[in-house]
């Protein structure tokens, strides 16, 4: 047999979906439930958080020879992600003087198996930053367009939170939130005293059972490992596996999509070609509609690689906008030591797999020297020790007196050192700002002219630089962290990050916060956008993008809840259009 022969399946599916994460998983779920015959192409392997083959939940650090160090997984041995910033054989590059870090998970459910579950709605203002501030662009849709879908997503996946009535931090259909931990109460009290709100967090975790398929949270603090009770939202357990159970989904794992194929006369999408990662064989599937949910940068890559006579710039790219306006959340953080928490009483304070309180954006940018806001995520407490625990004790134990009030020289050894470790355990807090950047045309990904991955698919080259806006925002974060630390009697660790720290005031490199969006933006005008308000390609009516690529802007919120709502909205549009025989 000729190994180069392309294998073509004889069936024509109703829909081919590329990627099984938040966006692709939701589309598969919606369409399969509606009775469409779906082929779901996932580059990674099969994953089910409840299958012992994959479970890391409730393991102890000593069950890992490296005690959970992050040698092979960026977030440590027990994290659920198969992948990371670098994947063997799947390289990417950045133009000189610029930087972008691209996190990919190759598995059923994508990055939703180990995401932080922070589920914040974008508010009304977040859809119209352009007209409100004169910087950036408006979305072609408003909060009111998405709100009903947010409601349905909340009910489908389960999100806890509290009704606060904040205008640009809309309330959802919440399950009860868990009570704050001790350090969170301390933060809350201190911040309130200086006018900074701290409210219950909003996470996609079942503090109450919502159906018979999924259990209730049993408070192990390990959502990053994936939940065998399905008590947290992962696209694998909550969307893909139920979608497959309908009998309407053909899942193909190891299917690395190369391009969307199109008809040479009509220009319409005819299906998807892919390389099987296990056999390296070329295949193609045919479908009446194609939906891309391969993650923002990957969907742009697939489109740019889908060149044909009718689509010479790549598919859906007659405007030339595909790849542009790439943007990730800003991030800066700081830790502190809380002397009042030394020698704490011990009890189980694991709680859910994330913070129990957070700070939504609370200020007015008109009165500040940067145009967009940020929220603050809090950490701390008596967590399970892992690799790195106790490192640097010599920087602490010479600074604070022992329980009986005497000072000791820093460092040391012996039973006195053991006492120090016990004394300092659980006495730290951590704050991380996550902010909205201004999307810029000059920040983009493009096809690297001379590189391919191990499947022979041309790879991405990034070009990304923060602007002054983001640096000033990071400075404001650092000032705020110190204010709260001081108000609670905490002592910030290390030196305050200044203009030369990281990308300025501790600002993380682009991509590091893993909220990349914007590369196949939607808009009203086909001259400067790739997709319409239903995430449908202006140039190709049976092609849709359902991940974060269509986002016009980021919001000072995490993005995944909005990916889910938009994908649900687009899926219903597809069903409606099929019924009306428009596609």
């Amino acid at each position, binding site marked *: 047999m000729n190994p180069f022969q392309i*294998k073509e*399946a*004889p*069936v*024509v*599916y109703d829909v081919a979906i590329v990627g099984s994460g938040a966006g692709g998983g939701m589309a598969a779920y919606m369409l399969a439930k509606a009775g469409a*015959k779906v082929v779901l192409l996932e580059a990674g392997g*099969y994953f089910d958080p409840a299958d*012992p083959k*994959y*479970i890391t939940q409730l*393991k*102890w650090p*000593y069950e890992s*020879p*490296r005690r959970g*160090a992050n040698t*092979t997984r960026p977030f440590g041995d*027990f994290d659920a992600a198969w992948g990371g910033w670098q994947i063997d054989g799947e390289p990417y590059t950045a133009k000189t003087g610029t930087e972008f870090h691209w996190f990919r998970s190759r598995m059923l459910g994508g990055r939703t198996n180990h995401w932080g579950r922070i589920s914040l709605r974008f508010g009304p203002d977040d859809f119209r930053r352009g007209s409100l501030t004169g910087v950036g662009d408006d979305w072609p849709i408003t909060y009111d367009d998405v709100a009903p879908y947010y409601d349905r997503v909340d009910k489908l996946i389960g999100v806890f939170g509290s009704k606060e009535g904040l205008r640009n931090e809309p309330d959802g259909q919440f399950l009860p939130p*868990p009570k*704050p*931990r*001790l350090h969170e109460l301390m933060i809350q009290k201190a911040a309130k005293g200086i006018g900074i709100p701290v409210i219950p967090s909003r996470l996609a975790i079942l503090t109450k059972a919502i159906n018979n398929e999924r259990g209730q949270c*049993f*408070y*192990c*603090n390990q959502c990053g490992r994936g939940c065998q009770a399905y008590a947290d939202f992962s696209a694998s357990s909550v969307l893909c596996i139920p979608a497959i159970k309908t*009998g309407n*989904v*053909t*899942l*193909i*794992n190891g299917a690395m999509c190369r391009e969307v194929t199109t008809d040479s006369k009509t220009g319409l999408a005819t299906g998807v070609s892919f390389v099987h990662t*296990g*056999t390296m064989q070329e295949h193609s599937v045919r479908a009446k509609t194609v939906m891309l949910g391969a993650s923002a940068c990957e969907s742009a890559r697939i489109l740019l690689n889908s060149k044909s006579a009718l689509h010479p710039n790549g598919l859906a790219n007659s405007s030339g906008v595909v790849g542009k306006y790439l943007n990730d959340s800003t991030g800066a953080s700081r830790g502190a030591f809380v002397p009042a928490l030394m020698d704490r*009483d*011990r*009890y*189980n*304070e*694991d709680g859910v797999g994330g913070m129990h309180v957070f700070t939504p954006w609370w200020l007015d940018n008109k009165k500040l020297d940067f145009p967009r806001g940020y929220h603050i995520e809090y950490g701390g407490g*008596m*967590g*399970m*020790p892992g690799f*790195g625990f106790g*490192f640097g*004790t*010599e920087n602490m134990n*010479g600074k604070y007196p022992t329980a009986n009030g005497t000072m000791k*020289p*820093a*460092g*040391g*050894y*012996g039973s006195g*050192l*053991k006492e120090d*470790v*016990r004394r300092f355990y659980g006495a730290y807090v951590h704050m991380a700002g996550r902010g909205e950047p201004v999307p810029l045309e000059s920040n983009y990904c493009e096809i690297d002219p001379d590189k391919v991955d191990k499947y022979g698919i041309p790879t991405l080259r990034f070009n990304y630089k923060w602007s002054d806006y983001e640096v000033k925002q990071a400075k404001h974060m650092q000032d705020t962290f110190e204010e709260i630390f001081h108000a609670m009697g905490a002592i910030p660790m290390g030196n305050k990050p200044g203009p030369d720290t990281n990308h300025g005031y501790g600002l993380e490199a682009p991509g590091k916060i893993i909220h990349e969006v914007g590369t196949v933006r939607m808009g009203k005008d086909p001259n400067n956008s790739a997709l319409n308000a239903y995430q449908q390609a202006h140039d190709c009516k049976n092609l849709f993008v359902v991940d974060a690529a269509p986002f016009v802007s980021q919001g000072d919120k995490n993005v995944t809840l909005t990916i889910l709502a938009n994908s649900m909205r687009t899926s219903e549009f597809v069903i409606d259009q099929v019924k009306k025989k428009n596609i």
Partner: protein
Amino acid sequence: MKRRDTLKALGFSGITFGLAVGPAEAGVPLPPDKKVPLKVPGGRQPFEAERDAKLHADKFFTPQELKTVTILSDIIIPADAKSGSATQAGVPAFIEFMMKDIPANQTPMRGGLAWLDNTCRKRYGKPFADCTRAQQIEMVDQIAYPQKAKKDMSQGVAFFNMMRNFVVCGFYTSKIGIEDLGYKGNTPNQWEGVPEPVLKKFGLSYS
């Protein structure tokens, strides 16, 4: 492989349009692996299991080095009234593994051990492991207190900091170390908030 077989492998054969097949975990079977099959423990990817097996089979420390690491481990974390010692918690084996897992540790560790032996030879005429207990403690006291140490001990201080880090971490991530620390979690429970007496102590409340 015939075309029909390929289609079957893909999970597409025998179906007419409108009748989709169920889950195809790996639509196309992987090529047969000729190596002796390795048992992949739960929660590991095959490449990780392979890598771990290889690292476990390799040896980093020489017997003499391991002796020194073992002595230092128990000086840093000895048994006390509350819990056992570093060696009882298997710390030397953990350090051995970490040297191979993160090779950047190898030179500072191996070099630090050599520095320690050299310094002991100069002072006591013997490598560290062969010194008397009193000499070992005298040596350790020179390098265990970063702010008090003499200038010519700075490399020793850096080495001891590294040793202390690995020993403390190895111990407190072991079963006996976790018990010593009093970490109470990693078990199904119902979170009801901070215990009342603790709230009182801090003058906090939920209302």
